[in-house]
């Protein structure tokens, strides 16, 4: 396995209007690794994925994918680059008017001139890899949440991408589906020699399968390390996050004026 970097992120800033979402992120992601990006809701994890995919432009800094600075590419070059990326959306985002088979075949039909017989074989191989070859004729509304996520995974590996980004792949799944998806991410990454970025806040499941973890809080990298380092970390934020503690650096209470003042008890004991 080569240790060459597939993605390099340097000094990345991003703001919506005047609200800063990401503030000076630096990351490197090696080929063939599964990398988790963790952080609370609204910490800018999904924004980071969108910056890597080039659907939004950074305020400053850059994302380099396979040696190319993503936001400097023109539309055609960006679309060419995106064929090397796959993305698994939170709830799968399957095309609801197409069957499972046609969903997986979608990119092959759009981007290649392969004969239909070859597309059929390829689609069945991708579906077999996620264990859903038997579900090829079903429509997306006939699938359970976990199955839909697996079909979406098969769809995202349709053109054998170099990178797959998973946006909260574990949300809303039962424990069995959860470990099925987790193991699939690991197995497919190893078997196809891809790189995977998993954006998640499911600590326990992701620590089982990833090689490296970044924690994002308030737009900066709060901590990073291997799963072992993360589990043993005594840094207050990491400890609170990994063990799911209610109070800590991330406070339980939203900032407010004093409780006594709110209840008009200021002078009660005076």
């Amino acid at each position, binding site marked *: 396995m080569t240790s060459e970097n597939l993605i390099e992120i340097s000094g990345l800033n991003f703001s919506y209007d005047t609200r800063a979402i990401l503030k000076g992120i630096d990351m490197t992601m090696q080929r063939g690794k599964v990398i988790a990006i963790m952080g609370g809701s609204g910490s800018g994890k999904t924004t980071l994925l969108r910056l890597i*995919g080039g*659907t939004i432009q950074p305020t400053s800094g850059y994302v380099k994918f396979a040696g190319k600075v993503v936001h400097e590419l023109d539309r055609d070059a960006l*679309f*060419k680059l*995106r*064929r090397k*990326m*796959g*993305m698994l*959306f*939170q*709830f799968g*985002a*399957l*095309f*609801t008017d197409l069957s499972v088979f046609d969903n997986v075949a*979608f*990119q092959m039909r*759009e*981007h290649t001139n392969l004969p239909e017989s070859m597309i059929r074989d390829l689609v069945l191989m991708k579906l077999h890899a996620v264990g859903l070859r038997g579900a090829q004729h079903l429509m997306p509304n006939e699938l359970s949440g976990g199955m839909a996520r697996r079909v979406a995974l098969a769809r995202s590996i349709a053109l054998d991408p170099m990178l797959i980004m998973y946006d909260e792949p574990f949300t809303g799944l039962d424990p069995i589906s959860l470990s099925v998806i987790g193991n699939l991410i690991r197995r497919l990454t190893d078997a196809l020699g891809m790189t995977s970025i998993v954006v998640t806040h499911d600590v326990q499941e992701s620590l089982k399968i990833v090689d490296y973890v970044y924690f994002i809080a308030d737009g900066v990298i709060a901590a990073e390390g291997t799963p072992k380092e993360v589990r043993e970390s005594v840094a207050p934020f990491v400890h609170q996050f990994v063990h799911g503690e209610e109070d800590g650096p991330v406070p339980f209470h939203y900032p407010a004026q004093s409780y006594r003042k709110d209840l008009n008890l200021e002078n009660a004991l005076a």
Partner: protein
Amino acid sequence: MLLPSRLISGIRHIGHRVIEGVWRLGIASRFFILVLLKSGTSLRRFNLVIRELYFTGVLSLIIIVVSGLFVGMVLGLQGYETLQKYGSESAVGTLVALSLVRELGPVVAALLFASRAGSAITAEIGLMKATEQLAAMGMMAVDPIARVVAPRFWSGVISMPFLAAIFSVMGVFGGYLVTVVFIGVDEGSYWSQMQSAVDFRFDIMNGFIKSCCFGVVVTAIAVFEGYDAPPTAEGVSGATTRTVVTSSLVILGLDFILTAFMFRGVS
């Protein structure tokens, strides 16, 4: 002179609304041009348009056929009641045909089309956006405007004139049923007066042009509202309502303008 602050805030509010409206019109126009520019895929892979033609055109047939029939029957009945007072009930065929071909066919068919197919297009595109299907398509390096929006736009533009024509034909048949079959107006005069009074260029072609314009306007509004809808349940439902309301108003306003240009001075 100092104006009361309530008046100033009222004026400011109107100003905001106008600027917002102009801004949105600009975005819609730019979107419309983008759709036209990216229509190459739809025209090259025409099966994408044919698939949508089924949903927008064929599935709208029932409402168009039934409404056309009843509108024609009402026109025949009302026309006969009035015309017989002057002893010219044989002209009822002309009345029915001209009303339908010039006005009611294109306008009512377009209104029905906006509420049946336009709202469905908006809801479908809006929901595709809300469930990240459009974003997923973009990430697969497939342009959603070329792949999703343009085929739906062209299917609406193509099906509208056909639906308007079918509406008019059903209306003429409805008028025939009521006046000739039930009331007993002379069949020969119903058809022959119609034939001599309806002009192909002035009446049928102008009606056809109207329905083409309505097709472009209704589908353009429907696809824009869907694509622009906020990706939430309220966002999509609001966009669907706006499609029907805006298209209906635009159809009626545009109809007046087109009529003024087409039929002024034509007796």
